[in-house]
Structure formats: C-alpha cells, structure tokens
C-alpha cells in the first residue's frame, strides 16, 4: 500500500499546527547564490547549530576548495559552476503552480499511470497547497508509534539539537567529509535529511518509508541521512519517490551513512525518479550521491536495493564495509537510462572481517542514446579469511544507439577468498516482442513486461508497497524507446 489519502489527511491536520514553525522560518530567509564561508555560517546559524558542527562544516569547505572532482566515471557533462547554485533557498511559493491546471500535462499523465491519488499529485508537482508538508509535521504522525518502541526518527537538524552525542559519534564516521568532492560539498552545506536510531534489540515496527515522498520535497538538494542500528536491531528504510518531481535544483549531492552493530540489519531501498531531462537531453538533475554503510558488528547485515530511473546524470555507488566477522553486504540494483541519460553506478564491497559475504546483482537497461555503466569494486583484505563474493551484472540494450558497460574491479589480498563474477549483455529480442504483441500487448506493454522480467530478481527485494509502483515505473521510463 502506498501513502493513503487517510495518511495525508492526518498529516494535514497535524501540519497546520506546525505551519508557523520550520517552514515559515525558511521562507523569510534566503541565502544569495554562490558558496563561501558566510553562506555556511548562515546555514549553521539558521539551524542554531552547536559550534562543533559549524567547525566541521567549515573544515569540509576549506578542504572542498582544493579538492579535484572525481573524473573516473564514464560520464560526460560540462564543468559545474558551483557559484551559480543556491545553497540555502526557501521553497519558491510564488513561482509554484496554483493548481494542477498549470502543471505540465506530461507530468500529470505519468502520475495517472502510476495511480497516484490526486491530492498527492498536487504535492509532487509542487502545487501551493494549504497545509505545509514538511518533515517536522509528517514525522509527528508516526513518531508516537516509533517512540513507544524507542526508535528515533527525525530530521537530522533536530537530531543535532536533541541527540548531539549520537550525531557527534556517528556523523562522518562512515563517509568522512574529505571522502570525495561531492561528499565534501554536502558536509559543508547540507541543509537537512533524516536521522534514525534503532536501539538494542529493537525491530523497527514499520517501514520508515510511508511518507517519504512528501518528506523529501524541499530538502532534496544536499540531504544527509544517518541510520544507526544498535546491537540486534532491524530497520527497513525506503527513500525516494516513484513519481517524477518538479524540481529546479540541478545539482544534488547527498550523503547517506549506515552503521550496523552486532547482529543488526539495515535494509535501505531507493526508488529514484528525478527529472531525467527531455527527449533531447536538455535539463535534468545531476545526481552525485555518496552512500556507504559499515557492518561494524559481528553477524551484521546491510542490504542496498536501488531502482534508478531518473536524473540526467547518476553517479552513485552504495557500498558496504564488512568489518565485523561474518557480516553480510548486499547490493541489488536496477538502473534504467533512456534518451540522453547517463548512469555510472555500482557498489564497493570491502571485506575486512572473517567469513564476510557479499552479493551484488546489477541490472542495467539502456535505451535511446543513453549510457549505462556498472562500476563495482570487490576488495578482500588480508585478514578476511573465508570471505566470499558473488557478482552478477546483466545489461539489456534497447535499440542500437545506446551503450552498456561493465567495469568490475576485483582485488583479493587473501588467497583463500572465493570470488565469482558473471556478466551478460543482451538485446531485447524481436521474437520476444513479436510473441507478446501476437498475444495482444502493445509494443510498450511488451517492453515493460520483458524489462520487468529482466529486473525481477532485484524488484522482488523492494518492500511490497513500492514494488508495484516500481514495476509501473520501469514501463514508463522506457516509453518511446522502441519503434
């Protein structure tokens, strides 16, 4: 079940109570374009942050200035002009469409196909609605249930105030601010995101996902997520949005850090469908994401599942550091590119502990003039006795103007490790299309069906409520790719 109208109504009532809070504050302030120390001080002051966090941001910023951009990905785009972006911009209420009538009909058509309720369409399209759906208000609805189980789930800016010890201990512990240029930028200017802490022995009573569609709306550009699962804890978290969002921000640089202690498990799922640009490759989001989890404890497990269909440029490698003995890392990915989209995505599995296991299943689908690259690294450290990895990368090409590339790096420093790598590249077969069409399916239905079959292994890993929408999304992303 996706977000229900009931939930939205509930949220509305709560939202109105908070309308004078967080969001109104932002609206009254806007930082000018560009990036310098003052902007960072401004952001930090806006959030009433403690001194240590400001220092951390400034350190990241000074480091960022001299840092080269990563250039090893198979991506082609003009150099970024960092001074041309807003780093703290309020939602532009005035520019927003007043009703759905003013929204691009193509966008609405997609919502229709995904079966998204009207009310939710308005939110996604950025229509100026009466109740303000910010992360503070929505979280409140669910917070009570979560509180009873001891789970902390709140905006990261709030966690800085209320749980400073946890934030100081864990933030930047998996992705240090100097990790790469994009992560460094995020560390300097992140405006919000989520914090989750699941205490020892607690199984989080719900998917932390149901409302995320709304939550993420205006915090998307430089969000920062931190999830800590204490000993024996379990949490499943879903970020993203199956419907394309109206979004003027071209540059996105997010950071996600996951920490799993002994016997803990974190399942992190993403459905990313940011604006991909038009048929001619004009516009679209640049999505530079640093996601990494550490299986710090024994027998801990981190599982990444992603369905990436949006963005003009995707640069993303959700990774696992398998430090605890017998810990497990998993990466399940579907990346679909169409028109002029480019995706360079994959994972890094670093085996440090004994008997650590990792599993990588990547499905890349390229259509139109697009380019899809799987880039993965499996690294076995000397002490990782009994480490095992299985990697499978399958690429499916639609048409003959697109490209699919598989770039695996394998490094084993332990002679007893077992590594397996399988890769296939295929084209969608004419015979399959014809067979489907003979049974009455349209060309587009046939492509959607065949591609969904190709990705099934990965889509099955998604939480139920999003699997259905993700399946529809697969079809929609490939519309116009054949014929």
């Amino acid at each position, binding site marked *: 079940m996706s977000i229900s109208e009931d939930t939205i109504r509930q949220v509305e009532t709560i939202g109105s109570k908070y309308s004078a809070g967080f969001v109104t504050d932002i609206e009254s302030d806007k930082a000018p374009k560009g990036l310098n120390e003052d902007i960072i001080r401004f952001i930090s002051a806006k959030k009433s942050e403690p001194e240590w966090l400001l220092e951390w941001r400034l350190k990241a910023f000074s480091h960022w200035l001299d840092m080269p951009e990563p250039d090893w990905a198979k991506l082609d785009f003009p150099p970024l002009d960092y001074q041309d972006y807003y780093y703290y911009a309020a939602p532009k209420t005035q520019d927003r469409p007043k009703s759905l009538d003013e929204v691009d009909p193509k966008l609405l058509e997609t919502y229709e196909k995904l079966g998204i309720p009207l009310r939710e369409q308005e939110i996604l399209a950025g229509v100026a609605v009466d109740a303000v759906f910010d992360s503070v208000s929505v979280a409140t609805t669910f917070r009570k249930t979560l509180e009873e189980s001891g789970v902390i789930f709140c905006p990261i800016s709030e966690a800085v105030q209320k749980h400073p010890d946890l934030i100081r201990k864990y933030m930047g512990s998996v992705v240090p601010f100097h990790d790469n240029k994009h992560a460094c930028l995020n560390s300097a200017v992140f405006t919000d995101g989520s914090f989750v802490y699941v205490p020892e022995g607690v199984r989080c009573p719900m998917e932390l996902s149901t409302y995320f569609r709304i939550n993420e709306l205006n915090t998307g550009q430089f969000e920062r997520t931190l999830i800590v699962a204490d000993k024996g804890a379990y949490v499943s978290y879903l970020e993203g949005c199956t419907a394309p969002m109206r979004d003027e921000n071209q540059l996105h640089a997010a950071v996600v850090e996951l920490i799993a202690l002994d016997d803990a498990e974190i399942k992190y799922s993403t459905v990313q469908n940011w604006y991909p640009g038009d048929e001619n490759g004009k516009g679209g989001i640049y999505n530079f994401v640093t996601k990494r989890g550490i299986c710090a404890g024994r027998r801990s497990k981190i599982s990444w599942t992603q369905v990436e269909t949006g963005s003009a440029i995707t640069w993303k490698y959700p990774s696992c550091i398998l430090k605890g003995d017998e810990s497990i890392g998993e990466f399940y990915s579907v990346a679909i590119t169409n028109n002029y989209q480019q995706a360079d995505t994959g994972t890094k599995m670093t085996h440090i502990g004994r008997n650590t296991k990792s599993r990588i299943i990547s499905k890349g689908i390229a259509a139109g003039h697009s380019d899809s690259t799987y880039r993965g690294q499996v690294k076995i450290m000397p002490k990782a006795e009994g480490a095992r990895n299985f990697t499978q990368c399958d690429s499916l090409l639609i048409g003959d103007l697109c490209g699919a590339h598989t770039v695996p790096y394998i490094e084993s420093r332990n002679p007893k490790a077992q590594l397996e790598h399988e890769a296939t590249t295929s084209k969608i*077969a*004419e015979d399959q299309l014809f067979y489907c069409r*003979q*049974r*009455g399916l349209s060309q587009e239905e046939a492509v959607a069906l065949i591609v969904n079959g*190709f990705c*099934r292994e990965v889509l099955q890993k998604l939480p139920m409520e999003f699997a259905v929408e993700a399946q529809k999304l697969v079809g929609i992303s490939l519309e116009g790719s054949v014929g």
Partner: protein
Amino acid sequence: MIRIENLHVEIDGKEILKGLDLTLEPGKVHAIMGPNGSGKSTLSYVLAGHESYTVTAGSVSYEGKNLLDMEPEERAALGVFLAFQYPVEIPGVQMSNFLRTAVNAVRRLRDEQELDALAFLKLAREKMKALGVQEDMLKRPVNVGASGGEKKRNEVLQMAMLEPRFAVLDETDSGLDIDALKIVAEGVNQLRNPERTFLVITHYQRLLDYIRPDIVHVLAQGRIVKTGGPELAQQLEAEGYAAFTGEQAA
C-alpha cells in the same frame, strides 16, 4: 471468413510466397501440408503480422477487414491467434502475469471489462483443468525451462484463454512425442467450435490423425497447389511431396 489472394511475400530480398490463394471457411479446420521450405511458417508469420516479412503483392481479408494493414496486437484483438512452432522464452515473467496482461490487453481492445486478479485466476484454473495443465505452470516463467510438450500445451492454454476466432497452428507437432502430441491435439479439439476457424500447418500427416481436418491444402514452392478432403493427407503420406514439387523424393 478469411480470403487470401495472390499473396507475395519476401524476407531478406528472397521471395517465399509466390502468389498464394486460399479461402478459409468459418468454423472449419483447414490443414496446410507442405515440404520444408515451401513457405508454411512464412504464411503463419505474415498472417500474425511479423515485421521481418514484406508483403510485395496481394491481400488478406479477414471478416471483411484488410488484415495486412493492422499491427500484430490489433489482429490479436480481432481474434487472430498464432500457436508458435517455437514458443518464445521470456525470463523472469511469470506465466500468470503474461497471460493476464494478454487477456486484459485483448479485452481492452475489444471494449470489454478487464479481469481482476481473482476473476482471472478463476478463469485460468477452469481452462487449465479442462486442458489438463498443471496449475504450477502459472507460476513458472514463460516457456523458460519447459519441455517441448509443455511449451505446446502452454500455447493451447493461451489459445483457450484468448478465445480467438481464427487460430493458426504452426507445426504444433514438431518436437513432440506421440503422447505429448495426443494431449495437445485433444486440447485443440476441445476448442473446435462453429465460430472458430483453424489453420493447422504441418509437415506430417501424423498430427492430422488426431486433429481431423475438414479441408486439406498442399503448399509447394510458395503456392497452394492442391486442395481436397482429409483423404489428400493420406495420399501425401503414402506418396510424398515429390509429385507437387517436381523434385525427386529424398
């Protein structure tokens, strides 16, 4: 009523059908027999609308409509069904999903109400029971890892679900042992009715022992060279195709 007139078809620049004329009567089972390379499979693909084949001349009229103008899915909606000689594998797609998508696509094109999951399952179970198809077939990926017999039975099941008005069976007997052949033929026989026209294409007379045709045509060198009753099949079995191809029997 299906009327094929002076049909010329080529693939990769090579002419395969060279002026084929054929009239199929409603509710009848027509058999086309012919040697390898005579154009049997080409005919079935052209009727279903495969894009690799180019029609250079002639016409196919189906219930008064020009079939050659239509997309494959439009033909399917109008009741044209092809049981494939080599059913295609679609990895990862469950048979139930495939079949329901197909049934609903066709229903939508016919302006009929789509079936929800429950109604679909009920119908599918009914048909499977009648055809003796195991229910676990629905959970398996389409034709993946299936035996020759299973694939052909699967085709018959799809036919039963889609309820075509014109069914073309392209060498349904190929790759089947005698037991599998009997089961498949029995399935087809169940689907015979006065509104449904069959075109059974085969190389061997064997299949026609189990699916008894009303009319038999001989296809040789891209044309129908003879039409007769069921006895024509017997004659072919005994004498071979040599008389029609002008070649020595192998």
